[in-house]
């Protein structure tokens, strides 16, 4: 069964498996995030999954986990996006729980996407979904 056609039950299993992962016991944040990004990529057939953390001084966002489903490789990323460079995007993140872009290339009219990602960045993907992490 292809990943794109995974049933709802499969997603529940994935969540259950994540909840029972030994990585919690080992306390390895890197391992859990890798499991999360892999689970997201393969369950929803998504090519790339990134985890970003906010930092306050100066206001910016730093990528701490990147997974490429095609190459099946993880990397710590390390890319940073300064709030001063993408004010609309950061504003949207403050206001909404989730930003969903169904056609990132053609959806250039969406100011959240347009103000959030450069054209050079946008040509690499065509649909994007940003989900916040809460404490």
């Amino acid at each position: 069964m292809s990943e794109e056609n995974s049933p709802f039950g499969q997603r529940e299993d994935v969540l259950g498996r994540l909840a029972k992962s030994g990585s919690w016991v080992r306390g390895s944040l890197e391992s859990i995030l890798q499991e999360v990004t892999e689970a997201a990529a393969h369950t929803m057939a998504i090519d790339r999954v990134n985890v970003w953390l906010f930092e306050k001084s100066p206001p910016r966002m730093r990528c701490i986990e990147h997974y490429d489903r095609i190459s099946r490789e993880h990397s710590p990323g390390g890319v940073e996006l300064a709030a001063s460079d993408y004010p609309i995007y950061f504003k949207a993140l403050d206001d909404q729980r989730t930003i969903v872009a169904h056609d990132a290339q053609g959806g250039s009219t969406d100011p959240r996407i347009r103000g959030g990602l450069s054209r050079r960045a946008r040509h690499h993907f065509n649909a994007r979904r940003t989900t916040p992490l809460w404490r």
Partner: protein
Amino acid sequence: MIGIICLEHVGLPRVWTSEEQRFAGSLADVASLAIASWERIQAQGALRQSEELTREIIAHALDAIVIVNEGGIITDWNPRAETVFGWTHAEALGMTLYDSVIPPRYHEDHRKGMQRFLETGEGPILNKRIEITARDKGGREFAAELTISPVRIGDSIAFSAFVRDITDRVRAELEVQQLNAELEERVEERTSQLRAAVEEKERLLDELQASSVELVDRLFELEHKSETIQNDLERAQVIQTALLPAEPPLLDGVHVNVLYRPGMNVGGDLYDVRTLDDGSLVIYVADAAGHGVAAAMLSVLFKQRLRTCDEGGQALAPLEVLRLVNEKLSTDVSARGLFLTVGYVHLDTKTGEMRAASAGHTPMLLRRANGESILLKRTGPALGLVKEAEYTEHQLTVEPGDRLILYTDGLIDGLEGTSNGELLEFLAPALTGDSSEGPERLRDLFRKVDQRSKGNANEAGRDDVTLLMLEATVGPCHFDNCPAADAQSSSRAESEVAAETDTPAWALWIAETGAETHLAIRGPGSWIHSEIFSRLGHAALDGQRRLTIDLENCTYLDSAFLGTLHELVATDTKANISILRPSSAVLELFGELGLTDVLKTICDGPSEPPCEPALVVHEPPARASQMRLLRAHEILSELSEENRQRFASVVETLRAELRNGS
């Protein structure tokens, strides 16, 4: 929000289903949980490390650390607290401070303090470093330094107490205090000793000063007495010289030459040459023992008591003359050491018969014309020693050309113990040669004596010298009684008499106008006055005034004053100084010391001051006084060994002060 999870689809546009969005949200929750869990684990680890660090610090702290809750119950107790208080950790936990470390007498105060803090949040001893008395498990109380800090944990309060045993420090502080007290006591004691020493020194100085003043007074008194005695001696010398025959008598067939030289002090030499009524000749030379007034008086007495003839006018035999005068002198003058020697000769100038007697006198010498020499020695004791003494006499006949010499012991002073041959050899030059050269031969002989005495250390004690030579030939008599000395003595006596009557004390009078300073010195100028004299003189010269120094009534100047005067004249480059009418004695001093510059300033101009003179009143200079004091003590020290020991420290002190002050 701490971050985002970003899902990116590559390729054709994709519509995210709501299921996918929920699933993504769930994954985001999982990631959030993972991040939160990781952060908590990190924080817990840091907390554990912090707690471990705190425990290590407390465990190894050098202070005892006690944690108590608000009920006073001990909840923690570090190893150092175990050492300090003796209670183990296990024993201490659960105990109260009252049970463990606070002495009972402080329990009540502590309870009140705790109560007050719990009610008001204030505590007078909190967050301060204080010193208290603590106790250990064995009940020993000791000094401790305590710091209590309240720690609020949630709704409860705990207290951390840091306790340090400061027994050693307190003991050290007490020791320091004790040492300081002892030191202060010693300083005070030493100060008292020094104060006492200073007071003692001041007292001694006062005594010394008083003693010095007294000594100076005594010294002046002694000097005055010495001066008086010297004057008396010089007058006695004048009188004694007056006893000598001034003019030689007319003699038949013989002539006599005499040389008389008084010594430094008045002596007792006496001689006489006289003719008797029967034409015979009597000569004698006498020498009173010792020197000074007593000897002179004895000579006078001898001359007064001497009888050369009997009541009938007949010449008495020399042995009888001596017996009689001895008897009288022994009766009149009976004192130890008071005697007189005489060589007495009676010569019948017609027959040449000579009778000679000697009362303890130096041998007379008869030199025959043929060269034979005969010593005529003593024929009895000196006069005044033995009242019943008997005398014999020599009887000889003097032939023409014979020479007889009589002399006093001053002539052979220093030749004691010589043989007769040596004595004859010494006297021979006077007894040979042409008759007309007699006086000169006597002087030659005296010069030898004088030179010999100058070679001796005891120059001042040269005795009188009397030489009398009779020659049995016709010739002129010559009596050399030292007229120069006579004149000097007379002059001296006269000047001193004048000084005593006219100028008993020293004084300096000054009369000053814009053009002239007139300084008149009265009496003897000495070191005491040289300083004020110098200052006034230099002030006159500095002020371009003519300086007249009137010495008309100045009787004497000592070396210090003479030096000062010379210095003053030497600085007078414009010839502004005139010295008026110095006495002969002062003039002589100028000459003796070679003060040629001073001599050049002497003139005989009027000595009237330019205005009414005023007496100069001044204090003697301190240093000069010191020097004078030193000299006074040195002089007194030389008088006797007892004085030397008595004044040794004084002399040394004065010398040291003069050295330090120089």
